[in-house]
């Protein structure tokens, strides 16, 4: 499964790469990382229909995660790709907004990778 992770924090890449070390080694997941909404859009433009799942942070400088969500859903109203938004804990407004714009699920920060892995397992099925 090709997964695009969008987050402005650089260390997210190192984190995912270690957390999914085995899965990456086994070829189960393939990760791509973008550090802004603009970068993500450009990436999707260059690699159309590649990313099955997009994991995006909401609070980002420049284009916010919600804006990105809107733009992606404009072109692809239904999954693929699945879009999972990462929100700050206890922000119900943003959650509601995300669902309204077409997000499929959401996760809270700080990221719990076990939960994430469970959700990914469900998606695969």
């Amino acid at each position, binding site marked *: 499964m090709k997964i695009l992770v969008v987050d*402005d*924090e650089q*260390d997210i890449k*190192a*984190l995912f790469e*270690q*957390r999914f070390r085995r899965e990456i080694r086994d070829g189960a997941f393939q990760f791509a990382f973008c550090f802004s909404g603009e970068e993500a859009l450009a990436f999707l433009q260059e690699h159309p229909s590649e990313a099955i799942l997009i994991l995006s942070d*909401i*609070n*980002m*400088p*420049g*284009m*916010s995660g919600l804006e990105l969500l809107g733009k992606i859903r404009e072109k692809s109203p239904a999954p693929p790709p699945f879009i999972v938004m990462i929100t*700050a*804990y206890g922000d119900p407004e943003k959650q509601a907004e995300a669902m309204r714009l077409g997000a499929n699920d959401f996760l809270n*920060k*700080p*990221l719990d*990778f076990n939960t994430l892995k469970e959700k990914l397992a469900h998606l695969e099925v």
Partner: protein
Amino acid sequence: MELAPGILLAVGVIHLVRKTLDTARLTPAWDKVLSKIWLVSIVYFFVTLLPFLGFLKEWYGRLIYVLLLITVYLMREHRSARLLSGALLPGFFVYVIDHFFRFAFPAFHESQSDFFNTAESFAGLWLLGFGIYALIQNNKEVKNRQKQEERIRQAEARKAELEHLVAERTAELTEQKNELKKSLAELKAAQDQLVHSEKMASLGELTAGIAHEIQNPLNFVNNFSELSVEIAHELLEELEKPDFDRELVKDLVSDLTQNQEKINHHGKRAANIVTGMLQHARSSTGAKEPTDLNALADEYLRLSYHGLRAKDKSFNAKMSTDFDPTIGKIEVVPQDLGRVLLNLINNAFYAVHQKNTQLSESSQLSESYSPTVTVSTKKLKNAVEIRIRDNGTGIPDSLKAKIFQPFFTTKPTGQGTGLGLSLAYDIVTKGHGGTMEVETKEGEGTTFLIKLPV
């Protein structure tokens, strides 16, 4: 003259005199004597009935006359008495002259008896007439006195009325004064509360953002430490093998090291955010201490950036500094001045953000607009200058005068208390004896200039 009617007349006259001259009030002792005239006269009457005391009849009139004269004399200070004396005196003189002539020149007296009788009658009429005149005068006087007393009474009543009114008014005014005092105290309390809540608001803005901001570093600390534990287990597992893979071990150790570095980095990041926030919350002792203004400005610049970015991640701006290293340490209250800088920097960031939003909404955003806030310091001859410059929306001329007014804000309701600049102005001018000025051009940007004396 017969005695009996004479007695009646005399008693009547005495009574009249007593009333007219008010002897009861003015010569009470003598009045008591006069009041006995009834009794005395009746006794006198019976005495004169005695055989050889008949001559006393004549003397009765003289007795009465003498009584009157004594009365007049005793009350000689009173006008009414003097009047009465005028009535009595002719009679007196006639009596004296009559008796003189009767004893000294009896023959002459006999021949002129008509004249002397007439004189006596005239004296009697004079007494009567004058008595009536005196009575009328007395009444007039009594009436006058009464009128005056009435007038005085009215004046007193009026005075009492006015005093009452004044007392009422004074009570009203005192009550008003107390109410105003109370209102003043309440206003002062409300003002204190507002200042406090402004401080809390700016603190609250920070805390909300800070909480957000801390989540990211915390996320990394938790995750990388978990990962490090896993890696350590893996490492141990591998090293248990007699022929462990050296390269793998090296890789694992390298990852471990990297993770610890990241944990350290993000931990420090969180700590800095918290420290900055605590410093801002710390109440100022008001004491001036030698402070490095460059460090202060830098700290609050980053604090502001953190806070705003955490609150609104779409917020994006450049910050630049230009610090004069020669300014040294200045005696300031660091928390207060820090708040001033924080406020100005916040405003600067807000302004550039506004401009950015405006331009993007009207699709005029170009790569050429780079929202920037610059903080610079410079040492002058007797002062230190701090400049906070932004290339944001600028301030229109019409608002320029108002910005330092308390409660003035252009931010939407709930977003700004409007107290920041007015407090900042007070801190700089009153607290530190400095000046704060603003240079601005609408649409282009704003510069706030603080000068502090050294």
